[in-house]
Structure formats: C-alpha cells, structure tokens
C-alpha cells in the first residue's frame, strides 16, 4: 500500500517534472487544448445566458382567452369555474368595459374609441398556467378552445416555442462541436505522449529490463495526459471568463438601450471544474491510446 502510494506520487511528480522541463512545448500544448475547449465552453455559457434571458422575459408564458362578444355574465362565470376545475394556475378576468378603458388610455386611441358606436371588445381571461412547458401550454390551449362561447385562444408564447427550439438546436450543435474538439484534444494528447515515449525509449527499455511493470511505465504518461488536459480545461475556463468579462459591459449597455437590464454571466467555478475534469479525462484517454500503441514495439 505504501509502495503503491509512493509509486503514484513518483509518477505524478515525474509528470509535473516533464511538463515543467519543456515550458515552451507545454505552453503550446496547453494553448491548443485550451482553445479547443474554449469554443464549446463559450457556446455553453452563451446558451446558458440565453436561457436566462428567456426565463426572465415576463408575461411571456400566458394564454389569452377571448369570449364571444355576445357571451352572457353567466357563461363567463361558467368558463371561470372550468378554469378552476382544470387547475389552470393563475388567471385574471378582464371585463370588456375595462379593456375599452385601457384602450382609451393608449395614446392616440381615445378618439378612435370615442367614435365607435358600441364596445367591440370581448370579455377576456389572461391565464398564467402553472405548467409552462411548451407542450403543456399547447395542450391547454387546445382544451380551452373547445369550451362553449370561447371565440379565440391565443398562446402568447409562440416565440417561447421558437426560442426553445432554437435552444435545443444550439445545444445539439454544441454537443457536436464539443465532440469534435474532444476528439481533437485526444489527438493532441496522443501526439505529445507519442513523442515523449520516443524521447524516453532508453529509459523505458532499461526499466523493462530491470523489472518494471507495465503500470510503472505507463503511469507517468497517464498522469501527464490528465494533467495537461486538466490544465488546458482550466485555461479554457479562464479564456471564457476573460471574454465574458470584456463583453459584459457592452452587452449591459446594449440591453439598457433596448430598455431592459441584462447581465452576462461567466462560467461558474463548477463550470470551470467540469471543463478541467473533461480535459483531464480526455487527456487520460489520449495518453492511454498513445501509450498502448507506442509501447508495443518495446515488447
């Protein structure tokens, strides 16, 4: 157990030493890995921010229910009890008189409203459903549309659906991008480790001759791959955080110009950890592949 621990410690130390003793190579490899991980990382942060934006936009997930113009008070009451029975969430009844008053208050509309012979507006309900999943909203819209004296049901969230579809597409594209760059990272590690194995051929041969196990020979390379990948991941997180930091101000200004407020969120410590772990796992994988192939000729 003690020997096992000592050997792992030695392998880790040797991996550190190899990274440290060729600073330029290490820097270049880290840059390649860092940049490869930056693109999917940045994409993830972007999607995350967009999702926040969609969630924050208020009044989005609403269903507007318009009654027939000739619907009686009793029929309106009937719809209200149906909403209650359906557990539709929160709703607000907007009587046609109030709708007319609101319209009169709108700039330039007062004269038009005054010129109307009678109130053309129907009674309406504004429903804020408890379940805001796009699919659930659609089901509810269909159900309400079937109720008596309901003239029109409008899902005010058509764009929410589109936005959701866009996010899904973005997520898929991100996974594909991530997959490609993950393969790139494995390839980069594969190559650096292959060169190292060649450079240390003498040491590997001698170690084999005097009783080194496969594990002893492979371990430092595994640690090297994982370490390089992990550091690359951290570099990627730093690059994304830096980019968000630079873009944060201008994005806030832009949001203000559109009359909203929106702050760009950088990668969280957890995101950085995920990037570093992904880098480490992929680096380990690349090292594993490389060592398995490169060590064959020493048998």
């Amino acid at each position, binding site marked *: 157990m003690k*020997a096992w621990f*000592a050997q792992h410690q030695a392998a880790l130390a040797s991996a550190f030493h190899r990274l440290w003793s060729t600073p330029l190579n290490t820097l270049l490899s880290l840059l390649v890995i860092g940049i490869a991980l930056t693109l999917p990382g940045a994409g993830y942060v972007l999607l995350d921010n967009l999702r926040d934006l969609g969630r924050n936009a208020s009044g989005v997930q609403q269903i507007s229910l318009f009654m027939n113009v000739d619907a009686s008070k009793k029929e309106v009451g009937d719809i209200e009890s149906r909403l209650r029975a359906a557990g539709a969430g929160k709703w607000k009844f907007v009587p046609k008189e109030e709708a007319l008053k609101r319209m009169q208050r709108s700039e330039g509309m007062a004269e038009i409203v005054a010129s109307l012979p009678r109130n053309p507006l129907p009674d309406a309900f504004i429903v804020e459903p408890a379940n805001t999943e796009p699919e659930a909203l659609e089901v509810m819209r269909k159900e309400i549309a079937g109720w008596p004296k309901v003239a029109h049901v409008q899902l005010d969230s058509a764009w929410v659906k589109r936005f959701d579809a866009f996010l899904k597409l973005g997520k898929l594209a991100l996974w594909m991008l991530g997959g490609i760059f993950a393969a790139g990272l494995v390839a980069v590690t594969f190559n650096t480790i292959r060169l190292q194995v060649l450079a240390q051929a003498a040491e590997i041969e*001698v170690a084999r001759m*005097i*009783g080194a196990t496969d594990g*002893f020979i492979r371990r430092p390379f595994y640690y090297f791959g994982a370490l390089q990948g992990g550091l690359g991941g951290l570099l990627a997180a730093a690059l994304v955080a830096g980019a968000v930091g630079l873009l944060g101000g201008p994005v806030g200004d832009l949001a203000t110009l559109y009359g909203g407020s929106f702050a760009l969120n950088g990668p969280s410590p957890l995101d950085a950890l995920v990037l570093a772990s992904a880098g480490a796992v992929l680096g380990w994988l690349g090292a594993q592949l490389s060592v398995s192939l490169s060590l064959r000729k020493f048998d």
Partner: protein
Amino acid sequence: MIVASNLSKRYPGGYEAVQDVSFEISAGQMVFITGHSGAGKTTLVKLIASIERPTAGSLVVNGQNLSALRRSAIPYVRRHLGMVFQDQKLLFDRSALDNVLLPLQIVGMPRRESIRRAQAALDKVGLLAREKARPIALSGGEQQRLAIARAVVNRPTVLLADEPTGNLDADSATEILEIFADFHRVGVTVVVATHDQNWIERYHPNVLRLDHGRLL
C-alpha cells in the same frame, strides 16, 4: 537456483541459437558461460533473464518455470535478478545516483531509504565519490561498475552479466572481475557470459562451454 532441461531457443526464421541444453547452477555458485561469438552465450543469458522465451524445454529460475510464465509475472522475476549488459544500458540524462535509484523506484521503495541503499551500492563498486556525475563523464570501467551497482542495489539472489568486460582494457576488466568475485564470496549466485580466457584461468569457476548452441 537455475535449472535448464533440454532448453532450446529457435528464432523466427529458423536459426537455433540454443539447442537442447541442460545444466544446473546451485545457489551461491559462480558460473561462467563461454564459447566463440555466436555460440549462444547471449541468448542463454537472455533466456535466464526472461528477455527471450524458450521454444522448447524448461528453464527454472528461483523456483519459477520461465517457459510457463505469464507475461505480467515477468517483471517480478526480473526483480530477483541483477542484470549487467555489455552496453551497460545506463541512462545518460541523469546522475550516477539516479541511475542506481531506478530499480528501487520500480519496487516503490521510499525515497530516503532508496538513497541510502543506492549510496551503499555505489560505495561497494567504488563510485560513491562520483554519485553526482553523469555517466558520460565516467570512464568505460566506471560505467560498467555503475551498471553493476544498479544491478545489485535490489540485493538480487542472482547476478547475471553478459560480456561485462567486452569493451574494457585489461586493468578495468580485472577490477570488474574482482567485484563479481566479491559478490560471489557473500553468497550471491553469479553467472557471467564471457569469452575472456584470463578470467577462467585465474578463477577456475564452473564453466558452461557452448559451441553452436550446444553445451560441450
């Protein structure tokens, strides 16, 4: 300690380097393997060190039948052998001390203890004063002594050497021989492949004489 029965090694292509060889080396013996070049000395050493595998017969070293050994068990067999190669196989990117430390790192010995052991091994071959030197700065004889220090640092039961004086002048060769004799005196089994007749005349060890792969 080392028992060969009807041992043969045929290389791919059909060349039979060792043919139907049987011998027994008991613990604590000093044995020389001699013969003209190409007689199979190196192959026999490689078989004992499980660098090569027998194609026929059996070879038992330290109670382990090498012909039936799993690949993963080979490193553990080698740890009980001290190997000295003709070309030394030293690592030139590190100090003499670090070269001797390598076998101890392989078995996972704590650093403090390994350094003490490695220095003792260097002392035994008279190189303690040069522990910080790189192998390139050592003479041929010193390099071979360093290789011996690395071979014995693990306190192996068998010390195995392939032409250890092949590239050395007579004086250095004698030094090396004295070191092997010292290990023999403290009970280590010593097996040396050599074509150096001086050795045999001086020490009258047990001799395995090979000719075209066969034992004479």
